[in-house]
């Protein structure tokens, strides 16, 4: 029966798991009265196949934590290669690894350090994989920096749920950090609130209007954005801007500096230029350690039932963390949204307040920034007709004239529209409510 134990000799046995086994072998005051300690739990942890998405700041921690929680079969996906600025926190990488694939180096390192664990890397995108692939895992732990990837995996996992087959429900544990802040949340697709239900908790930063950049800059960031969006396009449009090319950043920095001097704006620096252009989010080892460990603590509890876990019916499902002013956590139950375009069964259209005088183009551009939508390449159709399609080319051609029309010429107040975006495997239904 104990297939996972085959590789280890009996005298080694489980001696190294002494502390873990103490917990697995003893009931506690909060374990379920039906819970059977010992062998079944040890088996459950050893045999559960777990997927880790992301091998960066959070991912490195997650891999280490899962391996030292007794998981033996771990897969990891990451498309990125190692950069020197990762080394202040991504502790599985060394200077000599710069340029190599994160997933590969991380997997190899943890396999070498923790005996008996198998880590299978995949260096590519999560979108490369299909439902059959995701179906093999007991649960999925995410350490991502992109909202888009989170929404994609969330929608995919919700879509996989088949009420006839309990194995099709894959718990999703998601961590995120920014500087001294972060969150860990547990999602049981279709049962608890999902990433899409919680989307408005992670509102994107408002973009500076183009006219400010073009005519009335006031902040050093405005000058940098001008160089980034306008000057590059005007002067170097034949060269593809590479955010990692120091020559390109230097060019933008000098352009921004010159513009700032024209307008007497102080404060443009190389570091700020890099920060604005690459949209750099500060990241430190300590916050990653906290959030990743919280995610893995939940993963371990879910698989072993050694204690109640987040996301359990009637339990909280979301821990918010702030560490810049003392230490503060807020752990709560985020409620499922009845109009969630991903997980609501009724598929209710989510109301969206709009200014009826906006053109369709302005409306579509605005969707990228609206906290409850955040769609960057939307195609839209109303109940009656196709309003605008990004693809295929002939349909785009056909619908392009609509872009300059006002919303009130195209839809009526309260009308439902369906929006699709190539980043997501589903359609979003909105009810357009005209602002008075």
């Amino acid at each position: 029966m104990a297939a996972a134990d085959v590789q280890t000799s009996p005298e080694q046995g489980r001696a190294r798991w002494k502390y873990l086994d103490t917990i697995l072998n003893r009931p506690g005051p909060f374990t379920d009265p039906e819970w059977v300690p010992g062998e079944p739990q040890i088996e459950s942890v050893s045999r559960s196949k777990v997927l880790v998405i992301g091998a960066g700041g959070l991912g490195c921690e997650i891999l280490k934590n899962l391996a030292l929680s007794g998981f033996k079969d771990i897969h990891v996906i990451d498309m990125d290669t190692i950069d020197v600025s990762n080394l202040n926190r991504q502790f599985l990488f060394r200077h000599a690894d710069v340029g190599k694939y994160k997933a590969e180096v991380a997997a190899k390192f943890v396999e070498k350090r923790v005996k008996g664990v198998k880590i299978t890397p995949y260096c590519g995108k999560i979108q490369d994989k299909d439902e059959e692939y995701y179906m093999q895992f007991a649960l999925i732990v995410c350490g991502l920096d992109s909202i888009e990837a989170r929404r994609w995996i969330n929608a995919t996992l919700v879509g996989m749920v088949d009420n006839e087959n309990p194995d099709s429900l894959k718990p999703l544990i998601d961590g995120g950090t920014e500087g001294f802040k972060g969150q860990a949340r547990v999602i049981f697709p279709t049962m608890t609130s999902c990433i899409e239900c919680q989307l408005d908790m992670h509102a994107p930063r408002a973009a500076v209007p183009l006219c400010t950049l073009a005519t009335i800059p006031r902040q050093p960031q405005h000058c940098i954005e001008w160089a980034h969006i306008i000057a590059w396009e005007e002067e170097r449009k034949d060269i593809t801007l590479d955010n990692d090319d120091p020559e390109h950043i230097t060019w933008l920095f000098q352009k921004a500096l010159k513009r700032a001097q024209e307008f007497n704006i102080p404060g443009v620096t190389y570091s700020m230029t890099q920060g604005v252009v690459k949209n750099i989010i500060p990241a430190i080892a300590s916050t990653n350690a906290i959030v990743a460990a919280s995610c893995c603590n939940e993963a371990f509890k879910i698989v072993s039932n050694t204690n109640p876990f987040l996301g359990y019916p009637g339990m909280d499902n979301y821990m918010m963390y702030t560490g810049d002013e003392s230490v503060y956590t807020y752990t709560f139950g985020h409620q499922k949204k009845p109009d969630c375009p991903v997980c609501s069964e009724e598929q209710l259209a989510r109301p969206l307040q709009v200014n009826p005088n906006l053109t369709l183009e302005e409306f579509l551009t605005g969707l990228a920034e609206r906290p409850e939508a955040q769609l960057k390449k939307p195609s839209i159709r109303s109940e009656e007709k196709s309003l605008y399609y990004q693809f295929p080319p002939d349909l785009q051609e056909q619908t392009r004239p609509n872009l300059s029309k006002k919303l009130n010429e195209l839809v009526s107040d309260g009308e439902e529209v369906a929006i699709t975006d190539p980043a997501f495997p589903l359609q979003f239904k909105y009810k357009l409510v005209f602002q008075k």
Partner: protein
Amino acid sequence: MATDLPHPVQGPTAKEKKYDRQLRLWGATGQMALEDSHILLINSGPGVVGLETLKNLVLPGVGHFTIQDSSVVSEADLGVNFFLEDEHLGGFRAEHTCNLLKELNPDVQGSFVSEPVETFLAHADALYPYTLILVTAPIRPELLAKVSAYADAALIPLFYIHSVGFYSHFSIHLPPAFPIVDTHPSPETTTDLRLLKPWPELVQYAAEKTKALDNMAADDHGHVPYIALLLQYLEEWKASHDGEVPKNYKEKTSFRDLVSKAARTNNAEGGEENFDEAVAAVLKSLNPPEPNTSVKDIFREKEGLTISKGSASFWVITHAIGLFYTKHGVLPVPGSVPDMKARSADYIELQNVYKSKARKDFAEVLESVRVLERNANRSTPIEEKDVEAFCKNAAHIKLVRGRPFHVVQASETVKWGDRAKSIAQELTFPDSLVPLYIAFLAFDEFVATHDKDGLGGAPKVPGESDLEGDSEKVTGIAYKILNDLLKEAASTPDDDDLDTAKTRLGEFVQEIVRAGGGELHNIAALTGGLVSQEVIKVITEQYIPVDNTCIFDGVKSKSAVIRV
């Protein structure tokens, strides 16, 4: 091609590249402080939480760390500790964990001490080289007391950490006066525009920018900075309200209506962004520029009242700013202005109005600092940039009064002093983690009264072999600590509340004893994250540290901070 461009660019150094993501949080001065520090870890038990803490300090580039740990690497270490490998079995844990940690960052120095903590601490000046000390439980109370006494005398920050099963705790013993200037308040709370106490240049600016407002062309009208608008409408308001500004909520909302109605709506957008900004700022910004009480209290602290040769520069500057406050009734202007709808030149001009005022206020404070220095015969003048940084953040400075944490001794009652009343009250709050803290104290008392070999050697932790017997013992100890607390606080909580608190305390004890002194890697890693973050705050003197005890409950994924 670059001839028409200003300054040749110096790209970032190798170090700036490596540390880019953290320099954006604590800057070059924070980094320097980190690199100048030498941290000692006195490690024990499974030893994971201490090493996970160090990991998060080696990565960002702490100068030097030393691990004291006399354990020999066992099989059980390999299943919980990431900084050991199979080939280290039987070797000194201090040595091998030190070596693997050093691999994380070639810029960091690491040392180890594998002699027992008893003899290590017996050396004269054993603790002298260190700027900060971490101690993990279990440790014999007389040794912890010794380190605590040293920290007290040498004014060195000391951390004491538990990580047991699903629970953890740490307490920080900071020096009695631990002031922080660079608290990094959130940008929303720092805007201090002085709209109710404008100085002449600001009034003049507003008058100029709003001259003939009603007759302005549409584009001009839509670009008047909202600060000028608010100041102008305040003048109008005052004229019809006996020279008084809007004070209460009701007056502020009617003032807001007045501003709102002045916006032009006969345009394509149906409004004006600058007026929207003005309206949004009314409730937030029309407050008297009064410092909050915790800042005013700092001006009254004893260390700042008389300045002597040995006074820390914080107190010299505090005294000088106190003088400024007494004279003007306000703190120095911080000088920053939020972004707002405006033409470039108008905005820059406004920024300069605030900046020159900030410079003027700073000059006055600096002058007082120099007088204080002369009078106290101080030899090295405080750097101007320190005074300037203080003036900028004067409204957000913070003083933490460090104090020793509990060292539970075998035959002594745990004392809570001036905290007794408040802790006793908090004890019975629903979801309070005070019972968990008491459970950890009970764990320590068990350790203080039990030896592995009965010879005063390695401490014995509860639950290693006798789960039920030890649970009962620790519960008994915990109830006694709870009762002593209530006695000291002269508190008699309602019976139901007390029963609930005792039930919860009993459950916390059971869950702690269940672990048999073992660490779960996840909880150790999480706690190592929290502790390293606090170490960084303390070393860099930036942000606001835990005052003084933090508890984490990994069953419910909740934390609490209490002052004990």
